């Protein structure tokens, strides 16, 4: 017979006010298996814990139930206390009689009855608990960073500087991400590329960083400390080790088209380098644009019509036969920094985007402002190349608009719009900037002051209200809106309109499903806890950095990247990892081998194992959940029709015993 100690906490008045603690203690004495019952004003206090420890030792208890607050708060506390007294921590159970009883039921009889039954269920459960030891898994001392924008770069550098090997994978030909597109950054107005490119160069030269650009993570298997990766290096058709970046090839390439780095405001050839400071400084041949690919041959480049680049390349770096390469790596931790895209849906089109050349999004305007951009930093109307005088900036295009766009605030638009207006005034002093806004959100160091500078020093006209329509009218744009402060309709004739479109996640679910991490309804990766675990995912060993998790500005992105890197390093600095032992187990002598468990497992933790006879012939295949990968969700447990899978810590026996205790109490046995 188990010897269970039941300890009831008063939590000062918090529990004792509504739960009749003495009656509950009396009742608990009669619960089968209860060897000791006691109460205390604050069990979580040091003397309270000591009382539990002493009781375990004095009365030779082998199980403990602490009836107090939510296990989410103090389960670790009391489990540690139990461990201190020599009990396995999993033999300590909590009954929540505060959040679920005293705080929500003012009738003290009802609250007390519920408390009694809750404690009985906890006793019934703990009687069937088994001592569990943490699972230890070795750690592969290498990290993967997905995405090499500023977040990925910072995270990679932090870990590499600390001495950990890092694999940095970027899908584009160059690292740098969205930040490399920006002109100046708010609120200091320092040049974005000037502060970013040194980091990019550091990455390329770092001995601990293996940089894979133009590559994508195709498959991730394994588990925390032991992820196995398959990375697809796309064919550049240019041998990186031979390319000098001279650009002779691009000079002769006959096939121009829009340069996506410049938001198609400039052009590039089929063989190209996205921007002058690109890292690596290696040309890439775009198979979708190269004349040869238009031959629509199944073998692609092998049927050649144009070989101008190959002819002109001195180091003979062009290789039309290049094939994509699959690289396999093993890592212990993963930082996901896949960044954002602008969300240019219906709300933007409503305001003339894509209908009028002179309606542009924020990133296009950034490129226009950039000294290295398509206009070398001059502001020109895309339609006629004239300098615009009246420019209307519209904020919250798609953001904070659950009906047409997204419900969240994109956080950076207020600031960059102020920056845009201010830079416009710097570059075109006789221009007038108008900003339509809903609210000004300028929470950040020096942010509020920056907006005021735009308003007061640069005389940017801020109009509180929304724009309903932008109409192209005789070379001008008529912006129709309403000023909600005066309550009057507003009409502005503008030369140019810039839309602060909502930020959305760049990953459209591919990375989420490859890594099997959760995303919220907007597609941003979900953190393990919004407050306390903001850079972790719910999959152990995978961390988040930057705008892939939620809209944020550069300082926040970089901070989060460093945080993610430090979480990764926390992992990499350990020889073995301890995992929660609440995992699934299969009775392989009975497993029927239907493998439906494998089909429902979110973590691919279930493996096929062969059962052989004494001569080595295959008898059958059975399921085996790898404890190092199992997260303990219990999906497989329920899927197994024969009940051959059970979950440690939430076993069928425990659940059934609790259900037995939680039914309507028999007459005469009520509290």
């Amino acid at each position: 017979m188990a010897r269970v100690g039941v300890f009831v906490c008063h939590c000062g008045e918090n529990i004792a006010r509504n739960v009749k603690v003495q009656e509950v203690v009396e009742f608990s004495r009669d619960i089968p298996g209860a060897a000791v019952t006691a109460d205390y004003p604050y069990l979580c206090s040091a003397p309270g814990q000591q009382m539990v420890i002493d009781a375990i030792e004095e009365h030779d208890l082998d199980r403990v139930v602490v009836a107090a607050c939510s296990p989410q708060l103090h389960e670790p506390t009391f489990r540690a206390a139990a461990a201190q007294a020599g009990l396995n921590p999993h033999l300590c159970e909590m009954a929540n009689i505060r959040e679920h009883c005293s705080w929500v039921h003012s009738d003290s009889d009802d609250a007390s009855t519920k408390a009694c039954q809750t404690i009985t269920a906890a006793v019934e459960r703990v009687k069937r608990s088994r001592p569990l030891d943490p699972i230890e898994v070795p750690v592969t001392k290498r990290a993967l960073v997905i995405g090499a924008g500023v977040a990925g770069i910072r995270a990679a550098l932090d870990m590499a500087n600390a001495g950990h090997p890092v694999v940095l994978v970027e899908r584009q030909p160059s690292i740098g991400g969205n930040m490399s597109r920006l002109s100046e950054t708010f609120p200091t107005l320092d040049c974005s590329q000037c502060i970013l490119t040194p980091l990019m160069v550091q990455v390329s030269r770092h001995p601990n960083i293996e940089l894979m650009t133009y590559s994508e993570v195709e498959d991730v298997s394994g588990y925390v400390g032991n992820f196995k990766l398959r990375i697809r290096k796309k064919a550049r058709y240019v041998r990186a080790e031979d390319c000098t970046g001279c650009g002779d090839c691009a000079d002769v390439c006959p096939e121009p088209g829009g340069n996506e780095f410049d938001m198609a405001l400039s052009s590039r050839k089929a063989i190209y380098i996205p921007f002058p400071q690109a890292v690596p400084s290696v040309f890439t041949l775009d198979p979708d644009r190269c004349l040869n690919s238009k031959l629509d041959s199944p073998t692609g480049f092998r049927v050649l019509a144009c070989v101008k680049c190959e002819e002109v390349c001195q180091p003979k770096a062009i290789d039309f036969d290049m094939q994509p390469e699959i690289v396999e790596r093993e890592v212990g931790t993963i930082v996901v920094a896949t960044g954002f895209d602008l969300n240019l849906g219906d709300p933007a089109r409503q305001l003339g985007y894509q209908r009028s050349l002179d309606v542009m999004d924020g990133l296009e305007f950034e490129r226009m402002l950039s000294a290295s951009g398509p206009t070398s930093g001059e502001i020109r109307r895309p339609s006629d190349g004239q300098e615009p005088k009246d420019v209307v900036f519209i904020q919250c295009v798609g953001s904070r608009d659950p009906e047409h766009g997204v419900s969240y605030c994109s956080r950076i638009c207020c600031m960059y719009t102020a920056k845009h207006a201010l830079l416009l005034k710097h570059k075109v002093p006789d221009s007038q900037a108008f900003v339509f806004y809903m609210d000004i959100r300028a929470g950040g160091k020096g942010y509020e002051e920056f907006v005021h500078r735009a308003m007061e020093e640069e005389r940017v006209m801020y109009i509180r209200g929304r724009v309903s329509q932008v109409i192209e009218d005789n070379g001008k744009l008529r912006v129709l809106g309403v000023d909600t402060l005066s309550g009057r309709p507003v009409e502005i004739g503008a030369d140019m309109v810039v839309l602060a479109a909502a930020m959305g996640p760049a990953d459209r679910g591919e990375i989420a499903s490859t890594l099997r991490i959760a995303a919220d309804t907007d597609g941003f990766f979900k953190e393990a806890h919004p407050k306390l675990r903001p850079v972790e995912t719910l999959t152990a060993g995978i961390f988040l950095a930057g705008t892939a998790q939620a809209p944020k500005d550069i300082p926040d992105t970089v901070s989060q990247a460093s945080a993610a890197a430090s979480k990764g390093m926390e992992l990499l600095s350990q020889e073995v990892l301890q995992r929660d032992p609440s995992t699934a187990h299969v009775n392989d002598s009975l497993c029927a081998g239907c493998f439906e468990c494998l089909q429902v497992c979110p973590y691919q933790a279930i493996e096929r194992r062969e059962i052989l006879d004494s001569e080595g012939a295959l008898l059958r295949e059975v399921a085996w959940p790898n404890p190092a990968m199992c997260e303990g969700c219990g999906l497989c447990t329920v899927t197994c029709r024969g009940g051959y899978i059970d979950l440690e810590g939430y076993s069928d026996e425990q659940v059934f015993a609790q259900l037995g205790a939680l039914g309507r109490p028999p007459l005469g046995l009520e509290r």
Partner: protein
Amino acid sequence: MTEANVSTAQSSAGPAPEDWKPHIVALVCNWCSYAGADMAGTTRLEYPSNVRMLRFPCTGRMSPLMILKAFEGDADGVLVSGCHPGDCHYVQGNLVARRRFTIFRSLMDFIGIDLKRLHFAWVSAAEGHKWAKVVGEVTAAVQEAGPLPGFEAPKGWDGIELPDMAGSGPQELDDKQLDAICDNLRKAATEILSTGRAGVVIAYGQGNLAGRTRPVFITDGADCDALVWGQGCRNNLSTYVASTLEGRERVAVVAKACDLGAISGLIREGQIRRDQVLVIGVQCPGVTDDSNLAAKCLACSGDPHPVCDLVVTVDGVQESCEDPSQATLDTADARDEQIAYLESLPHGERWKYWQRQFARCLRCYACRAACPLCYCASCVAEKHRPQWVPTSIDNPGNSTWNIIRAIHLAGRCSGCDECARVCPADIRLDLINRKLALEVERHYGKVGLDPGEKSALVDFRMEDSEEFIL
């Protein structure tokens, strides 16, 4: 426990006293709803105290049987609550669970559990208010539904007359035609055994009672005369395929169209490989249930399905090689009207209808033994720690068994009706199976013959229906 004990040990039955308060068990996930309830506490929101909570790691850990257990433990209502879709701590646990709950809920409804007693909700860790509101609503609904009706045979109840099943069945075959089919079948079997295409032919032999057959296992071509064909060929022989395979490379099995779904299910679930079975499809005159055409035959054409390896008809034997993944089975069913009629009755009547049948259940497990897809080495009904299915052969235990059997077949049952055929107590298991098949089809699409397809209840889609979830 036996009924007698349940009723004496637990609160006495009878009309609800005026001060009756419902007893509700809530199964909640640790990460969202438990934390949401914590939040309600932290916010000091008052809500009814009738709810007893049981914490799980995930809604995916909650077996529908645990809901049933709660009802058996005299709960008047059950609330199941977890994370909103997309919020699951385990990525997809709640999405798989949602399908299980959808089907389980429709089964409970069908057997007469008033849905005012069974509620599902998504409550996040931040939704303390929602938790309090949900508990309030659920308590009010269960209060309205009253005490749970007993798991017991109805007394002094006249029963329900279900509408007749209509349907003409397959094309009638005269004795000459049946003899021709039988001759062709014998020829095919002889050929298979003599050429070694399979080591054994599982077929029908003459039974001892008039109009009955029994399974025969023919290994010698010379014995093929023992093979018969006719309306007495009722068994689904695919039940025998896996056991007959022991020590053999390949077995041939005679299959009616209604038997094929089971073969494809066995392949899908890894019990046999496609290359281990040679399927002999035979033109079927429909089988009789003593003198009447069996219910499953009423809407069936009887034609052999082209996905079989061999097709035997009056005209001869043909090889066939159609791609099974393209094939579906005709699901017109004569029983649907009976199901609709039952569903038109109040829950109390349905409860009596099924409790009276479950009272007859002897727990002989013939339904399980005859089912080709009940292949577990050891059934959950035999599990003792914990006791999943009460061993006592009475209404609580029998209800558990019949419900768990139905749930284990949901999304998998091929509709061969073997369970209902073999039931000595004439429990209409076929109605339950058919009802669940209709539900699965309505929500998640049809189960075809493609063994590569995923079963509906191990799959999920983000956009799966969930209109019943609070």
